[in-house]
């Protein structure tokens, strides 16, 4: 009759020679299981606090971007201290989304029906699929939009890159950029986070006279009004930034919205 009492089984297991196959496998399994529980618990318990931290940082970067964009403080002052207005837009329609507010955006984006899959030809930024709604920030001068801050995202060398791109009132000129999240190689691609590099974006023209998108991160120093200095040793990251801006300024990104703002519909 086999002894099935777990305690005595456990004791028998512990007295096995350390190098027996059973003990090796069971010890490996138990150690992995305990470690997995430890790691999972830490991640799950701490996630809400981390999400809060990230949201706060996003807000801080938005404020820093606004402060760094030249003449923006004048514009804000003229608007009578009125800060940026937050708008959720429907990307396909290029208009303010009916029924989705900044508060309900999170819930709306949790629903896969509110995402559009991108075909490989459209998906230049390597996103796979794109949300139908985006939260943007507008600064108004009277009735016209004088500045739009648009969140953009793409896939870099090591992972996702997120940034806030600020466009001037003509919707052609970049007013500034702030990279809000990246995991590029420290010292190389991660230099997209540096102020000095980001300042190169200000004043760049996104489109040529025919309206085609021409913006790119150059290989080496910028030569035209459409180019930003490249980052040496980080070609993939530089390309990712180019593709990211091109995608989001294109028809699947903020194209309809930009057209609407130019027509004065906002």
């Amino acid at each position, binding site marked *: 009759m086999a002894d099935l009492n777990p305690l005595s089984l456990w004791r028998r297991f512990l007295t096995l020679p350390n190098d027996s196959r059973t003990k090796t496998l069971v*010890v490996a399994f138990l150690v*992995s299981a305990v*470690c*997995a529980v430890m790691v999972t618990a*830490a*991640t799950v318990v*701490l996630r809400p*606090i981390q999400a809060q*931290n990230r949201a706060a940082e996003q807000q801080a970067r938005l404020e820093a971007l606004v402060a760094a964009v030249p003449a923006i403080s004048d514009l804000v002052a003229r608007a009578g201290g009125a800060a940026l207005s937050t708008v959720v837009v429907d990307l396909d329609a290029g208009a303010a989304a009916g029924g989705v507010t900044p508060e309900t955006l999170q819930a709306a984006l949790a629903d896969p029906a509110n995402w559009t899959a991108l075909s490989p030809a459209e998906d230049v930024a390597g996103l796979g699929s794109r949300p139908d709604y985006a939260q943007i920030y507008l600064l108004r001068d009277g009735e016209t939009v004088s500045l739009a801050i648009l969140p953009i995202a793409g896939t870099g060398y090591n992972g996702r890159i997120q940034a806030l791109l600020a466009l001037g009132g003509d919707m052609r000129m970049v007013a500034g950029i702030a990279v809000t999240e990246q995991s590029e190689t420290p010292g190389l691609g991660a230099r997209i986070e540096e102020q000095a590099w980001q300042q190169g974006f200000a004043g760049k023209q996104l489109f040529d006279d025919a309206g085609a998108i021409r913006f790119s991160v150059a290989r080496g120093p910028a030569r035209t009004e459409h180019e930003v200095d490249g980052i040496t040793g980080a070609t993939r990251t530089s390309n990712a930034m180019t593709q990211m801006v091109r995608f989001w300024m294109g028809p699947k990104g903020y194209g309809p919205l930009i057209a609407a703002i130019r027509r004065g519909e906002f």
Partner: protein
Amino acid sequence: MAGRESLWNALTAPLIRQNPVTLQILGICSALAVTTSLATAFTLSVSLTVVVVLSAGLISLIRRHIPNSIRLIVQIIIIASLVIVIDQILQAWFFALSQRLSVFVSLIATNCIVLGRTESFARSNPPLLSMVDALGSGLGYSLVLTVIGACRELFGSGKLAGVAVLPLADEGGWFTPLSLMLLAPSAFFLLGGLIWAIRSLRPEQAEPPEFPPHETGEAR
């Protein structure tokens, strides 16, 4: 049971006499990378000390049942899991600092001091003694990092733990910051200087030369 004296010895030996960084030259990578300011150096020191103490304790608890053939993997799994937990805690409650430390918290898992202490000490000693020994090693590492971090921050940016100590020239003071101090090579120089100073004071730490110095004709 270990006497009080051997506990005290295990705690204090790694501070200077057996310092893991200056004598065994372990953990150099992170010592170079995170010492640009005192705050980051201190955070990484605390994180490493916590990881090394906990992993030494855990491994020492199960030391009699670790199969020899997979002992390194078992140790690394325990260490790496603890590192992830610490990293998550830092991201939750010390977000700004964890952003500045970036990957170096996760790289504690590969720090030779941690695996070195668990493999060479905790695997064959009872938990209390192992943890005290690990604490000593962690403190030894922290001591070196703190000294280098303080030097680099003081001379590189005129501050100490974020508080201006030396008034900067471009803010109307007299001190021109040495930007070399903010680059990785300066940590090598400082560490080299520190090791030289310790080995001059304690000649028993100096290693015998591997080759006799070559005598050149021109030098005379």
